[in-house]
């Protein structure tokens, strides 16, 4: 026991220097070359920061493409999910309420066209994306609110769709922040 105690202590020290110190330092130095310098990349409109490129933010206004429900209210200082089980009756009531609310705001949409992601909370509470269907289904409402033709907005969504990785892997998606910024530019 005793003969192992001092090597353990000394080994711990050198491990702290290398794995906690030098490794962190090296990665931090390399980070300076990444876009955003490792501080997180921001998105600006008219030289004003309106958000972080990767993090979702709350869009609830009828004139914007709405974001998914968030269990933490899009609090980027403390992410969070609902952690509701699939059989939880309170949770199912909540989902039903969200469907009803959506139907009120989007009276032109048929219920079977509402993609489930729009009425279920995301994993991080900061989901920055929607599926293409999740965006398309909101087009009639936005067209009416903004008084712009549906075709124009559909074209914008189509242009903003990000294809699967290399066209092969994973789902397609639309970044909501970027989409809404472009939407504000439409006349």
């Amino acid at each position: 026991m005793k003969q192992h105690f001092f090597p353990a202590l000394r080994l711990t020290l050198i491990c702290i220097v290398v794995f906690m110190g030098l490794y962190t330092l090296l990665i931090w130095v390399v980070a300076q070359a990444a876009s955003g310098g490792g501080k997180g990349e921001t998105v600006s409109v008219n030289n004003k920061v309106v958000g972080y490129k990767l993090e979702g933010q709350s869009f609830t206004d009828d004139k914007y493409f709405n974001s998914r429900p968030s269990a933490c209210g899009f609090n980027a200082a403390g992410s969070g999910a609902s952690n509701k089980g699939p059989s939880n009756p309170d949770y199912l009531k909540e989902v039903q309420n969200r469907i009803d609310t959506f139907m009120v705001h989007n009276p032109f949409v048929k219920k079977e066209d509402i993609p489930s992601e729009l009425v279920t909370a995301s994993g991080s509470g900061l989901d920055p994306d929607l599926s293409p269907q999740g965006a398309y289904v909101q087009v009639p409402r936005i067209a009416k609110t903004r008084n712009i033709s549906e075709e124009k907005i559909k074209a914008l969504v189509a242009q903003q769709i990000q294809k699967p990785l290399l066209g092969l892997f994973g789902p397609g998606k639309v970044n909501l922040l970027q989409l809404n910024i472009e939407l504000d530019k439409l006349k």
Partner: protein
Amino acid sequence: MNTEIFGVIAMFVITVLLAIPLGRYIGKVYNGDKTWLDFIFNPVDNLFFKAGGIKPEKEMTWQQSMVALLVINLVWFLLSMLVLMSMSWLPLNPDGNPSMTPDLAFNTTVSFVANTNLQHYSGETGVSYLGQLLLMFFQFVSAGTGMAACAVVFKAIKEKSTQNPGNFYNYFIKSCTRILLPLSIVVAIILMFNGTPMTFKGKDQFISMQGDTVNVSRGPAAAMIAIKQLGTNGGGYFGVNSAHPFENPNYFTNMVENICIILIPAALIFALGYMLKRKRFTWIVFGIMTLGFLLLVIPSIYNEKHGSTAVGKMGILQSHGSTEGKEVRFGAAASAYWGISTTVTSNGSVNAMHDSFTPLTGMFAMLGMMINSFYGGVGVGFLNFYIFIIIAVFISGLMVGRTPEFMGKKIEAKEIKIASIIALLHPFLILVGTAIASRLYAHDPTAYAGWLNNPGNHGFSEMLYEFTSSSANNGSGFEGLGDNTPFWNIACGTVMLLARFLPIIGPVAIAGILAKKKYVPESAGTLKTDTSTFGIMVFAVIFIVAALSFFPALALGPISEFFGMR
């Protein structure tokens, strides 16, 4: 076939293609053979040996190696308790986060020292940057500890007859410097160039497009995320782990991180093959593990893509499967694939919330942890598998009337006793723990109302999952459980402690005892261990011992929930 399924297949194929050469490299490192990276790592390792006052060529018995392992882990335990309970006034705390309470510090310390990374706190609000970096240090050394123990067993199996299966310190340092460190550097850099933060600045603030004031947590995340994926640690930088857009920015990083989960556990099997020069045996082991993995992952992907029955009844579109607790950029298939990857290995990081998985996927995730040896944790996964091999050799030896031998060594009463105790420890810890928690809750539901986030069978599953995760040293959770209470902190901490060190000492002891025995050359009377028949036998033992002991508990939890929802 759609792109979500292609993505999952690509991840698995790339993992195997990378694991084979990496395994060869790891085999060379543990053998002490020359590698092309020696010119960098020889001086680095010498620095460690010198600073630690260690002679790497000095032989150690298995007992000495185990004492060395326990002593250094004790040092880490004390260090961690000290820092976690005082970090609020230590440097590198720009967000002013508090110190931990003693019970939470105990849980977190055990959790990280034991390579579990169960987190009863949330990264953004529960630890300072210094605390995060210290936990990252444990992610390196706890992974290195498991790999070193595994290397001792490899060496013991390899040697025909020896008292000294290698030097613990030597394996430990080389695992950290030559395997974990270079891979972590590569992965951290990939993550950063995809947007993961690596900064010492505190929270940022901006005004969103709808006029809300938003605070954004940041920090030195990229460095930690790389090693948490590689070392089957799983403790995330941010509260929601790899579901967080900073922690896992896009589908590409998701593939990289998911490949890292299985990479080293799978590579270690090939390392053993390289060291023993037994290709067939390697592929049998790898085949059993892969079969088990696929049996869990395929139905899980099917279930998640199929969607939730209850939500389906509401008449909305579920073309993207079950979406509660999942992120759009990963989709249901990649979320289910990750869910099983992270539970068959003892990683425990998540990219979707396991609490919100459909009932059967939740069960498969639990089964992965209950079996805990399909790939398994870095190092310790093979140690668990080794226990099952020993039991399978013994049972099949008895069945066909041959002497139970493994790699030319007779297996006798002492080894079987150790193997049985270790195999039964896991169900014991899980089931007894869950039983106590259930009894407390059922006896006084109002007093413990804060525990469960979901009623009925799912609530039971939350408690069962927590103990399973602790005992499997996994660290994922049905996170709805209100687990930052003295009961859960102390109960899970104790389970993690026992379930970490006993299953390391047991297999090392068996291998050490066998190594001392006389080598018996193979003859016609030897039970062949590199045939598919023996593979099936091992699989059957795993199924009977690990899976069936949990069937009653699973029937009360996810299985009842599944039938209740139909």
